[in-house]
């Protein structure tokens, strides 16, 4: 455990001298605090991490903002109990301590008990590289994929995080995961909490960029004749959106995900099950790097910077064309 607060600014400099100074997580407590004021069903459950942001909210709503201490099994179990009495719990800590450590509570106390909650994680795959592997959770979305009924939002900008947090809390008693990160695209886009957004259209393949990898994907695919879809909600997977894109751009599909590589390849294959197709799943590698350093260094080490992506996407799409011509 650690009291680390990500301070890496979203996008850092935009090259014009101004700074995007806040992170997705900076939006989290203010957004949820407003929802606490507006909606008597909303409750917040914390395990120390993130409590400072709720100092005012806890004074206004002492019974609906609960910090259980460094107790992550209780964090999720108590959220289930709150939900059983009719509340809408919003549960927050780092992804590794929210999904991985209490995974059986996620599976049973929310899934098997047929209750719902909004799980909001921070720290993502490697938001704090100097913190090491104990604070990295590249497998969080893949783990949730073993369970039924989860909605998974992966915002790529603080503005999108705000939108998706509102969608998540408003989603009845659904089980919703919101994956916040200090990694961010330079600008937010208009998203609806369900569908992929077409950012660029081409005819020689579809690249699905998930959340904060979009800027790198756009740089990597500059000059390539590919469609770029932007996904901020990956479960349920927008199969219809992918199929529409594939009608014009073909069924060579590259996924670029900011978590474990290949997490959504099965979803792509299912979407295109009746069509011949090729899929390349890019993302965070499975192998533990045992490196500290910066986010940028880890992005590059996993081949997720523009250069690394360009090489692999270009090779895959080019090989597809060569095959098609044979």
């Amino acid at each position, binding site marked *: 455990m650690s009291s680390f607060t990500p301070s890496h600014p979203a996008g850092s400099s935009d090259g014009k001298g101004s700074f995007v100074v806040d992170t997705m997580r900076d939006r989290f407590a203010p957004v949820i605090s407003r929802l606490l004021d507006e909606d008597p069903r909303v*409750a917040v459950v914390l395990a120390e991490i993130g409590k400072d942001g709720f100092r005012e909210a806890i004074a206004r709503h002492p019974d609906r903002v609960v910090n259980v201490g460094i107790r992550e099994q209780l964090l999720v*179990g108590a959220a289930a109990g709150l939900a059983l009495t009719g509340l809408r719990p919003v549960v927050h800590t780092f992804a590794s301590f929210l999904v991985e450590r209490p995974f059986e509570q996620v599976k049973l106390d929310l899934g098997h008990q047929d209750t719902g909650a909004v799980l909001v994680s921070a720290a993502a795959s490697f938001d704090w590289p100097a913190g090491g592997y104990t604070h990295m959770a590249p497998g969080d979305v893949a783990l949730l994929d073993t369970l039924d009924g989860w909605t998974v939002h992966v915002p790529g900008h603080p503005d999108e995080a705000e939108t998706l947090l509102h969608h998540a809390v408003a989603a009845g008693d659904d089980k919703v995961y919101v994956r916040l990160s200090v990694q961010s695209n330079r600008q937010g886009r208009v998203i609806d909490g369900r569908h992929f957004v077409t950012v660029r259209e081409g005819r020689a393949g579809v690249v699905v960029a998930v959340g904060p990898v979009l800027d790198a994907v756009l740089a990597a695919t500059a000059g390539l004749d590919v469609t770029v879809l932007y996904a901020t909600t990956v479960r349920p997977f927008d199969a219809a959106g992918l199929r529409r894109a594939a009608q014009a751009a073909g069924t060579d599909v590259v996924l670029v995900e900011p978590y474990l590589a290949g997490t959504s390849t099965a979803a792509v294959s299912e979407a295109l099950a009746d069509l011949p197709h090729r899929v390349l799943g890019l993302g965070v590698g499975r192998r533990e790097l045992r490196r500290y350093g910066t986010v940028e260094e880890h992005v590059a080490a996993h081949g997720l910077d523009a250069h690394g992506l360009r090489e692999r996407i270009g090779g895959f799409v080019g090989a597809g064309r060569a095959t098609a011509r044979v």
Partner: protein
Amino acid sequence: MTTTAHDSRTYGYDDLPGLMSLMTGDEKHGPAATSTLDVLWVLYDRVLRVTPERREDPARDRFLLSKGHGPMAYYAVLAAKGFVPADWLPGFGAYDSPLGHHPDRVLVPGAEIGSGSLGHGLPIAVGSALGLRAQGLHDPAVWVLIGDAELDEGSNHEAIAFAGPAGLERLHTIVVDNSSASHARPGGIAARFEAAGWSAVSVDGRDHEALHAAFTAAHPGRPHVVVARVEPKAG
């Protein structure tokens, strides 16, 4: 007793062995099933303010069976009190029966939680107590039943250590102690709750009057645990 019981018939404590005998099959948790019988009966007969008609009432008392192993006594009591029809009992464990060897709240009317994996009930009960309090429902009580060996699970200790300092007065835990924990010390159960600020009472888990007194003892500002000792688990 008759096994063609009508749903509206009234069952008493003496009918419970007969109801349990309706549940046949290779139920391997036999001794555990009866360790909870008296506790469950006293609770449902004299303490819990919940009925089949009130099972959706936000102001009802909640009973969470965390120790889901050996649920025959639980099903028998639920049948006796009209939550489940007695004619469901013979199907115990069958594919199309709602009554499994661990209860499922989605399938069993009156079951507040599904259980089976140990150590989940008490944290959920903590959340239920918090949720009721947050909604201004200060009257309903939350009860959770766990086993002495179930206390091995660390998740319970997260809940115990939180609930005392949080002053969850409407939270009640019953530990049925049939000495089944492999590593335990005399008096250790109550001591651990007391160290976390709980009110604690230890009683004979077969003595209905003692159980009732322990269940209804005042515990202002603190959660309450009743350690109900029964004969050691056979085998």
